[in-house]
């Protein structure tokens, strides 16, 4: 039982990072209508910034904030400077984001190097709860993710900004006539998703080493999570992240560990073909091709 609870917390902390990236993608793809293939690189950049700040002597949580702000700024520049011009032709935006992911990856290699980076465990404590040892940092990661999920969920479903956002997805022209600054909302969603990627990167490097190529692994899982959950559906992304984590955990324990990555791909292809709106329902993403 103790081992099971330990495993549960471990899997949850891994799933947390996946959920954060999945929420970012689900919002940007499903609500802003932009497919950002560089989103995984945003996460990697967030992790690298955290690493850099921590190794230059900053507290981890200050570094985490720094990563969120800087990656948010990166998202702002990318949206205003690049994606803004391809909103009419999402396909071009998609290709452009591939170019951007190549650039970010190699700029990071150029500035640092391609060796994997780690930071020491920021808390370095082990909580003993009911006789179960839990690494404190993992608990913090899960808790932070839960808070972010709650804020995002209620922000979109309850607040007036969330309502305005959903209105501009449902009918852009009418929403604009009602005085909703649609373009500004697109930017806002993009920056918010980028901030979450920064947070995910910071939390990820607290758990595992990160290399400049981490982003390309993470992005596939992020797309899988957001497509399983349904685009634009925050709760769905959480469900998708937990489902994927469960499948991965089970396959690593009972199946063929070398095929672990294949399951999420197969699930994603199947869902895209059979239920493009995702298991839990959502938007179909940008309508035009």
């Amino acid at each position, binding site marked *: 039982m103790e081992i099971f609870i330990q495993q549960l917390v471990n899997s949850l902390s891994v799933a947390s990072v996946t959920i954060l990236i999945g929420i970012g993608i689900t919002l940007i*793809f499903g609500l802003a209508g932009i*497919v950002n293939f560089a989103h995984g690189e945003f996460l990697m950049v967030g992790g690298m910034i955290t690493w850099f700040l921590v190794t230059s002597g900053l507290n981890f949580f200050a570094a985490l904030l720094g990563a969120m702000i800087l990656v948010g700024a990166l998202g702002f520049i990318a949206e205003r400077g*690049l994606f803004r*011009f*391809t909103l009419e*032709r*999402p*396909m*071009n935006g*998609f*290709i*452009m984001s*591939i*170019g*951007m992911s*190549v*650039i970010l*990856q*190699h*700029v990071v*290699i*150029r500035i640092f190097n391609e060796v994997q980076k780690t930071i020491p465990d920021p808390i370095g404590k082990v909580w003993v709860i009911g006789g179960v040892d839990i690494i404190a940092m993992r608990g913090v990661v899960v808790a932070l993710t839960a808070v972010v999920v709650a804020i995002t969920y209620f922000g979109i479903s309850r607040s007036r900004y969330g309502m305005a956002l959903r209105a501009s997805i449902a009918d852009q022209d009418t929403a604009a006539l009602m005085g909703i600054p649609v373009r500004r909302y697109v930017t806002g969603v993009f920056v918010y998703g980028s901030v979450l990627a920064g947070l995910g990167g910071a939390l990820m490097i607290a758990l595992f080493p990160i290399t400049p190529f981490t982003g*390309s692994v993470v992005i*596939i899982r992020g*797309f899988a999570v957001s*497509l399983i959950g349904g685009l634009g559906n925050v709760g769905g992304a959480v469900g998708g992240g937990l489902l994927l984590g469960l499948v991965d955990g089970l396959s690593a324990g009972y199946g063929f560990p*070398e*095929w672990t*990555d*294949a399951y999420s*791909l*197969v699930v*994603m*292809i199947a869902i*895209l*073909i059979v239920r*493009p709106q995702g298991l839990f329902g959502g938007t179909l*993403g*940008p309508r*035009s*091709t």
Partner: protein
Amino acid sequence: MAASAENSSKEKIVAAVAIGLFLVIFPWLNPGYRYLSLAITTGITAIALYGLGLQFGQAGIMSVGHAAFIGVGAYTAAILSGNVGAGFWVALPFSILLSAFIAGLVGLPSLRVSGQHYIIITFCFCALLNIALTNGGAFTGGATGLDVGSIDRIFEINFDQLRNAYYLVILALFICVVVIYLIINSSYGRTLNAIRENEPLARAVGINANLHKIGVLMVSGALAGVAGILQAYYLHHISPALYGPFPSLYLALMVMLGGARLIYGPLVGAIIVNFLPEIMRLDPIDSRIAYGVGLLIVILLLPGGVSAGLFGAYRWLMSKRQQ
């Protein structure tokens, strides 16, 4: 009007002959080992790019998993040579057919989902194939891959000599360009354009869009198969890393960079990406960055790619001169 049409067709022939002539005499210009081998790689890449350019430029179906079909061609050749002892010329039709078949199979979802969703499917498929090749044990050689021998001599031509390998690739490229040219300018090409521009309308006037979409994807896959078998026999060793998601992304970027619609677009893209870093003496990291920045600039400023940009500049110069 008639005069200008005649003029432009004359221009086309002159351009084609000039490019063809340059490609034929290239090995005699003393390019050295490095540039000649680079030219071979470029030619092989260009063959695959023509397939991708056809499906994206004419039918509007993009793919970021195209390296997978090159991989199918290459692995077909390597496995046939390793297990059955079949040489290049025997394996060639099998590589082409199997790549085309797999491309058609992967294309089936494109009938149901479109746009970005289909692109993500192609990416997933490519990653999936990569995992399968890596875990394939002795059959696919695992992560280290397979060794491939030499191309059987015909008429005593030794294709291990770089110059002969170059001519083989150029011949294949030439055939491929001719095929693409004929497709683009046939009624079949115009059917594809109709599907690209307005699929519901194309269906409404009785075009069997499903059939043509799978058809064009199979042609594209067949060209990837040719590129794959040429690559396998040129490199003498193949591994899954050559055909993973990353090479696929680069193929997609090359097509966008060169331009998918014009006949020389894919060739221009392949040449820029392979030769420019060498000429400008960039190291691999800087050249990747330059490559990405170039792509952003092309998409924002020259949506038709570099080839369309060059063509437009040429047109503009000519009209200036006539005034």
